[in-house]
């Protein structure tokens, strides 16, 4: 039974983005914003990858002089900053912006205008940072920006200010997205999608966004304090006037460690989604998986100090943070064993997304195990801040997040574009990436053990690090080639890929119920859900929601636990004001890099834009009233 019917054209017109340039700037449809978000994040990924290539070029030989210390410092700072703040966290939220409403059977994301605003803020923050970088104002104190090196005394000029203000941009965007996505998941699920029928990916997004809500304020606080130290001469981090340089590290890592899990937890959702689809069975141990996700989120807040073991701690503190750091491996172990069980008992469809997911079992496990080693204080004190750690977190982040993410890209690409990616090129991409990645980063474990510290722009020949570094650079080139193939694959698919159809993979979740690319309203008829894998049921839906307006962006809000119909509400229409508000906010943020008074005069345009944004029009109000029905 099709969910399309004759009214879908009218509905399409209601939910479509307006045409023209103004329409482009006014778009609020979550799929449009999600696509832009994903493309932007991948653009930053490419930029950071190019920077990584430059670093590998410099480190290819001992005593190389391709890059000087100044340029190298900016590049490694930009690489880390981009990857962590402009790619990894945003891309996870970006995918959620696109996928979550589809997966839960909603017509829209909650707060669509705010969603657009969050995207523009993110985009402007990233563009500002790269603009600064190209003007030789790129931050150079590391992505962690430890004070006092990043403080006013040792980082003159505006380089670090741009970095700190980029934090403000991306964290503002991230926090808004967290609110939007939590609300979406709690209130906009299709009727019948009770919490225990929530797809595991949506669970992971929910858990991630709660973590973001708790962790991001710490880094906004610390970076704002840094800006104030640098701009108006406060003394948050000046020990001479009562501040403390370690305060920065505590605040930063209180955010920074959970941040790794912002990236990792959604990837676990990708894993569960893809494994389930390509095993043709439900994930074994749904409840255990959900509990493991939540446990990971809790534990993630208890181990930030393992980034700071070398600053010295009391013995009891060391043992506590060691224990927590190791214990967080247990929820991961639960999930890994459940996936193995699922794979063992499933019937596997060996498609490209599954390849990327299977790579996780090698790469992430290696990264996780080196993480366990790093949790042991004595071992950490030897390998902390060496290439061992560089290897470790690339194994965790690339194995644990990028491989599943790329898998998810192959998985959802047909849904987003309506076209299939080439499986052959995909396999080439996968194997070259897998080989190149391991060749790049595995030698770094050894380099770290051999004593090579991180963040060095050059190294001497004596300690014998040259051969492994060369190997690593070659690996980086192979990885680069693999991503060129990826780009080729995407280009080919967009140009002349096979049409995908609604559900090319035979997947069980709701996003595959609608057309590819999806209808502007997602679901012309909103389904009533009756299981955790509805499309695999013989009778997928218990029925459809009726009575939602076609001429208005009307959606059905449901209750938090049981997704029982709660009330109808009208989502806002496209408007340019989120864009203009973001422009005004950007002016305020960039202005306040140069003068604290920008915070004062900058609020005027922001206030004007926000008032305009929320100003009700007569026509809208009248239409809303017209739709009101007596009970």
């Amino acid at each position, binding site marked *: 039974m099709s969910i399309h019917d004759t009214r879908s054209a009218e509905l399409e017109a209601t939910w479509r983005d307006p045409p023209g340039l103004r329409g482009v700037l006014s778009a609020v449809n979550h799929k449009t914003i999600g696509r832009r978000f994903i493309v932007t994040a991948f653009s930053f990924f490419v930029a950071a990858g190019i920077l990584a290539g430059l670093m590998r070029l410099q480190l290819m030989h001992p005593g190389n002089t391709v890059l000087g210390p100044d340029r190298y410092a900016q590049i490694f700072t930009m690489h880390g900053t981009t990857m962590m703040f402009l790619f990894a966290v945003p891309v996870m939220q970006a995918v959620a912006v696109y996928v979550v409403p589809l997966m839960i059977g909603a017509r829209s994301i909650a707060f669509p205008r705010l969603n657009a605003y969050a995207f523009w803020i993110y985009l402007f923050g990233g563009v500002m940072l790269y603009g600064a970088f190209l003007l030789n104002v790129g931050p150079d104190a590391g992505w962690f920006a430890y004070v006092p090196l990043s403080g006013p005394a040792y980082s003159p000029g505006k380089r670090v200010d741009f970095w700190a203000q980029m934090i403000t941009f991306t964290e503002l965007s991230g926090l808004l997205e967290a609110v939007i996505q939590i609300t979406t998941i709690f209130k906009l699920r299709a009727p019948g999608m009770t919490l225990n029928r929530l797809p595991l990916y949506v669970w992971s997004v929910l858990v991630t966004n709660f973590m973001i809500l708790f962790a991001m304020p710490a880094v906004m606080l610390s970076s704002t304090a840094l800006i104030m130290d640098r701009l108006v001469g406060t003394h948050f981090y000046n020990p001479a006037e009562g501040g403390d340089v370690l305060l920065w590290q505590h605040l930063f890592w209180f955010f920074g460690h959970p941040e790794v899990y912002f990236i990792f937890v959604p990837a676990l959702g990708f894993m569960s989604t893809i494994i389930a689809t390509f095993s*043709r069975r439900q994930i074994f141990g749904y409840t255990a998986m959900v509990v493991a996700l939540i446990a990971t989120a809790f534990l993630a807040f208890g181990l930030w100090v393992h980034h700071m073991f070398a600053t010295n701690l009391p013995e009891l503190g060391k043992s506590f943070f060691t224990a927590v750091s190791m214990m967080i491996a247990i929820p991961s172990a639960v999930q890994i*064993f459940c996936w193995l069980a699922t794979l063992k008992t499933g019937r596997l*469809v060996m498609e490209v997304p599954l390849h990327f997911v299977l790579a996780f079992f090698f790469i992430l496990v290696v990264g996780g195990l080196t993480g366990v*080693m790093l949790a042991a204080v004595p071992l950490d004190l030897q390998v902390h801040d060496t290439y061992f750690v560089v290897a470790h977190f690339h194994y965790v982040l690339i194995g644990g997040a990028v491989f599943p993410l790329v898998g998810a890209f192959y998985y959802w690409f047909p849904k987003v574009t309506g076209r299939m990616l080439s499986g052959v090129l995909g396999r080439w991409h996968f194997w070259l990436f897998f080989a190149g990645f391991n060749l790049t980063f595995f030698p770094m474990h050894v380099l770290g*053990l051999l004593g090579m510290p991180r963040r060095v722009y050059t190294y001497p020949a004596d300690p014998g690090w040259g051969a492994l570094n060369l190997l690593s650079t070659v690996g980086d080139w192979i990885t680069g080639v693999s991503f060129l193939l990826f780009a080729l694959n995407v280009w080919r698919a967009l140009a002349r890929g096979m049409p995908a159809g609604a559900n090319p993979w035979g997947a069980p979740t709701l996003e595959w119920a609608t057309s590819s690319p999806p209808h502007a309203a997602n679901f012309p008829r909103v389904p009533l859900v009756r299981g955790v894998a509805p499309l695999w049921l013989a009778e997928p839906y218990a029925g459809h929601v009726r009575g939602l307006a076609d001429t208005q962006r009307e959606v059905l809000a449901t209750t938090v636990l049981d997704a029982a119909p709660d009330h109808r509400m009208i989502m806002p229409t496209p408007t340019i004001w989120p864009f203009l508000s973001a422009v005004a906010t950007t002016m305020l943020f960039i202005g306040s890099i140069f003068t604290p008074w920008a915070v004062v005069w900058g609020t005027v345009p922001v206030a004007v834009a926000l008032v305009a944004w929320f100003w009700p029009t007569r026509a809208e109000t009248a239409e809303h009233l017209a739709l009101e029905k007596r009970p």
Partner: protein
Amino acid sequence: MSGLPLAAFLDTPPLGELSQDALRAAGPQAAATLALWWPTLALCSAVLLGILIALGYALATSGRAVRSAPGDLSSLANREPGLVRAVSVGVALSTVALLGLVAASAATDRKLASLDTAGALQVHVIAHQWWWEFEYLDADVTRRFVTANELHLPVGRAVELVLDADDVIHSLWIPNLAGKRDLIPGHTQTLRLRADRAGVYRGQCAEYCGYQHANMALRVVAEEPGAFTAWADRMRAPAAAPATPLAQQGRAIFENGTCAMCHTVSGTPAAAKHAPDLTHLASRRRLAAETLENTHDLLARWISRPNALKPGVYMPDQAYSESDVQALTAYLETLK
């Protein structure tokens, strides 16, 4: 353990000949860490192998399907006790292994903290951008002396390094002897270690500290107590007056020019504290925190164009005449 076979392939120097790796211990701290490292590595490797075997087994024994195949939701209806058992055993084993590692780590921690430091040599280490200052402490203050970038230690005697940072955060790491410890402005720390094996070890700053972080290394010379005492006595002696006219001319340039604004040469009016103590520069093997070999030519280049060799270093470039460079070099080479 004598190290990875890989090390030979990699051309790393033998232990005690300017090695810098965490896999070969020359003292009890590094040895205790290695004693934790190898079992941990073995255990982790076993876990990895176990998971890969499990994955291989799962892939080998599971069925195959095509894209169009329908999903199977029978697992929702049927309990899967075999899987529950397997997963439970896996998780339990993981937990036990992790608890074992926590215990081993804590025990190693205690062991590291319990190094007997009775009669320890105390050295005050001050990290600067981008060099190391070592002040050898002594209850008799007249026996204290200061040197830079080359840390000599007596074999078999505990050493307590009192750590301070002058500017930004640095981290002292001598992998053959002990794990690292950060030097943080406003927080004095200590690092206790002992070298049990004579030799030369390389150490390096391990916390990013600015442009020349890469060239902030140190040389640790662990020597027999007799040799150490002789070295310390040499270090305590003020600089001898230069004998040759060229060196004397160099000394005049040194003391009346820019050098004395930052450097100290004990026994002369040069007593500034912002750069390495040069009283016994010629006895050190390398220049500029292990950046350059201490040769005549490199020294001459270093004193006139340091920023060409270590860009960003605080030592200024100078337009010395060739004769001035020769005189200064001649003087510096007398500072044995």
